[in-house]
């Protein structure tokens, strides 16, 4: 009697082809993507047929939440050779120093920003804290900061629009500080209107967003852009 031998088959599968595919996919994602910027609130922008692209460098984005809280994010020049002078972090430091000085002019109060605070501030993408609380805010850890700034009910969140002694408000102080930057490319972009992008949710009422628009108008920043998503004429 011959024994029936069951042939043992190897379960090894050649994964080389699979690996090739995944590496290709990975390369695709790495090349096409841009990282999501951290923002205190996620908004759904309205759609438009306009096909102009959002600039990634030299732009100040003004985000208006449906509750009327305002946040600003500043992106400097993308040119690596001018990083120390015109890069995002350098511009943010410059704008903060400028804003603190202007705030002192307007209120007579020194907000007590230290050199360490300036360094921390330059790493933050989007800010929206009254200047008087900024020092306190920058003492928090990053997780606490994110938690703090995404609380839309908190009165200490959002750039205040209360009129200061010289008739300006903090939003105007920030925008004027951005306009006064030494980064010539950002300055030119702000002047031409491509450097200011207003971003808001599609349901935000006009009365809320009008606050930002009239303040821009007061500062003679009549030209700006609005962030939209793409749609076709059939929509």
């Amino acid at each position, binding site marked *: 009697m011959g024994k029936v031998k069951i042939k043992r088959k190897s379960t090894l599968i050649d994964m080389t082809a699979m690996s090739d595919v995944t590496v290709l996919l990975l390369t695709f994602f790495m090349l096409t993507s841009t990282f999501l910027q951290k923002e205190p609130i996620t908004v759904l*922008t*309205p759609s438009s047929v306009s096909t*102009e692209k959002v600039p990634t460098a030299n732009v100040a984005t003004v985000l208006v939440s449906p509750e009327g809280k305002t946040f600003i994010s500043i992106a400097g020049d993308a040119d690596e050779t001018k990083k120390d002078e015109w890069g995002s972090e350098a511009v943010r430091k410059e704008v903060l120093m400028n804003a603190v000085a202007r705030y002192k002019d307007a209120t007579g109060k020194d907000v007590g920003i230290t050199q360490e605070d300036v360094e921390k501030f330059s790493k933050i993408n989007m800010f929206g804290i009254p200047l008087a609380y900024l020092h306190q805010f920058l003492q928090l850890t990053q997780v606490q900061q994110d938690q703090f700034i995404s609380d839309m009910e908190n009165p200490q969140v959002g750039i205040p629009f209360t009129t200061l002694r010289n008739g300006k408000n903090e939003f105007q102080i920030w925008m004027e500080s951005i306009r006064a930057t030494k980064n010539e490319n950002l300055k030119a972009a702000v002047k031409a209107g491509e450097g200011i992008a207003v971003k808001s949710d599609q*349901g935000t009422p006009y009365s809320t967003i009008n606050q930002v628009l009239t303040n*821009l108008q007061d500062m003679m920043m009549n030209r700006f852009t609005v962030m939209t998503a793409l749609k076709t004429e059939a929509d």
Partner: protein
Amino acid sequence: MAQIEQGGGDGKKKKGAQKKMQIHVDFTPMVDMNMLLITFFMLCTTMIKSQTLSVTLPAKPDPDKPPVESSSKVNQDDAITMILWTERDDQGNVKTDGEGKPMHTIYYYFGKPCAYDPATGQLTEPNKLKAERFIGNSGELAQGIRAILAERNADVLRDVNTQKQRWRNKEITDEEYQAIAKEIRNNKDKYPNRPVVSIKPTEGAAWAAIISAFDEMQINQISQYQLETLKPVDQAMLDQYKAAHPSE
């Protein structure tokens, strides 16, 4: 992981012949790692780059100077006023219609506003306000407010479309087309009856409605438009219209 198999162990090999080696490298961990990386990139990135729309607000009037009557306002018949209104529920959320589209309404009138008595807040002539919606094209056909604006700007639109056709046929480049289109839009001598649109959002009008209104200007090649604040007479016309048409 990596196995080296010695092939053919039947011992009938010639002396000195090189042993054949088969090398298997197990790629499974590599694939695992790649998959993880792909997942990370997919979750942390944006594929869609958002677009922008350029907006120019009118300059703030200088209180020291008397208001300058711009030449475009001379011919009031060409004016179109669009009052934007958004239907909201009790919580302030934008209401949507049966198809899930947000309920934005445009109340519009041509020319001067109705005669109005500021003392009583009543109109002294029949209300000429009409209501329309933002509706997308059906094929090539413009609908809703777009059709109305297209009719008012028909001359400019026709000439721009002729150029667009040339651009589609690759007779002119994109830059040339944009330049010609801009020239046509702004040619006030050739098209003296170009409309002047003032967009007046009500307090509760959604941001999307304002953007849609700007969009209609682009689509209909209207170069003269402004975002303005609602005047008392516009409010009176709107109130009266709503009282007369409670269902809308």
